[in-house]
């Protein structure tokens, strides 16, 4: 099953939970298997990752219906506002993703996290990222730029923080 790792990596970064990622990837593989009709040739990877992302969104909206969680409103704020430290879900990741940059990525809102993961970890072109995330290429570019600006801020600050502790 090629692309299963890519599917799992995306699911894991979207859900930030190993058990939820397992469920979403299994669901996605079954849907992919049943969806011969929706596959119109071309590259399998973006097609499969689109299904993974849709499964995640479905799971998320089902959970929201049961237990309302407000959507983050980040588009109008500055880059550093993309990362907030008081997300209770993040306490769970702390244990196995203690490294700073990974932690910072996990804190990005979904729509920024997904474009970043697809670009930096899957090395996908803008066109494919746009098709997976169902937004125009311009939006992919601006989300990438904002995600990177937020991470850069965090990352540079950490480096400086370490340096200032030196004698």
């Amino acid at each position, binding site marked *: *099953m*090629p*692309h*299963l*790792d890519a*599917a*799992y*990596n995306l699911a*894991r*970064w979207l859900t930030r939970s190993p058990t939820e*990622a*397992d469920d979403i*990837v*299994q669901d996605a*593989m*079954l849907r*992919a*298997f*049943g969806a*011969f*009709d929706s*596959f*119109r*040739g071309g590259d*399998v990877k973006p097609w*499969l990752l689109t299904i993974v992302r849709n499964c995640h969104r479905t799971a998320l909206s089902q959970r929201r219906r049961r237990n309302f969680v407000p959507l983050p409103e980040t588009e109008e704020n500055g880059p550093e506002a993309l990362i907030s430290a008081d997300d209770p879900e993040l306490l769970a990741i702390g244990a*196995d*993703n203690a*490294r*700073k*940059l*990974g932690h910072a*990525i996990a804190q990005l809102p979904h729509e920024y996290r997904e474009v*970043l993961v697809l*670009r*930096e*970890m899957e090395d996908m*072109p*803008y066109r494919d990222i746009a098709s997976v995330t169902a937004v125009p290429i311009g939006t992919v*570019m601006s989300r*990438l*730029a904002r995600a*990177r600006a937020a*991470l*850069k801020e965090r*990352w*540079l600050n950490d480096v400086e923080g370490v340096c200032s502790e030196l004698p």
Partner: protein
Amino acid sequence: MNCPESRRIQTYLDGETVDIDATEQHLASCRDCAELRDQLLGLRAGIHAEADYYRADAVLRGRISAALDREDHKRLSFGMFSRQFWAGTAGGALATVCAGLLAAFLFLPPLSDQLTDDVLTAHLRSLMPGHLVDVASGNHHTVKPWFAGRTDVSPPVAEFTREGYTLIGGRTDIVDGRRAAVTIYRHGAHIINVFAWPADDKRLPSVVSRNGYHLVFWKSGNVAFCAASDTALDELLALTRLLNAMATPDSRE
């Protein structure tokens, strides 16, 4: 970061810039943009070093294979899969290409399941009392000619007594709807059935392990083979290597 050109740096680093030369010229003259480039490259290196790339573990793979198997059997029993598949084939090249691509990339194990089932069932049945051999002989001069007229292939048959695989006879069986020649060997306390039938375009699985039995598939010329046994996998593979080293068999078609 006030340079109006700074937006180009990201597309340049993402390999999406058409005008690479112009961007590089600009980078050589603009300190702000050069700094941004260095920061973004540093960030990229940091992500590769510090952010995990999560891989699906064996448990999840097993879970998904099992779920796909169940799904596959459901479909086969309702005839949905074959109807869709054949309708697609008739409908045009596109659907065929799609199904083929999917088979190649995603669904290879479920598609070859029928074949695996065939061979495993035949192997299990052969182990029931009285079903193992049609012609009992430890001599390949007896077993090989016996296949003529009874099966569609003439597979290599030999005594590998020195290597620990004792020829005990031959049998006919049905695999993939074809008359298969089965050569039976004994290895220690284990029975090994080597099935041979005329190959078609169907892809073969390579090694399948199920219920404690190993099935090793391979193709030689226009003959498809499967060695089935509950012996250790490496000992089964050793026999397939011995058989492969013999002359290419002929299909009688």
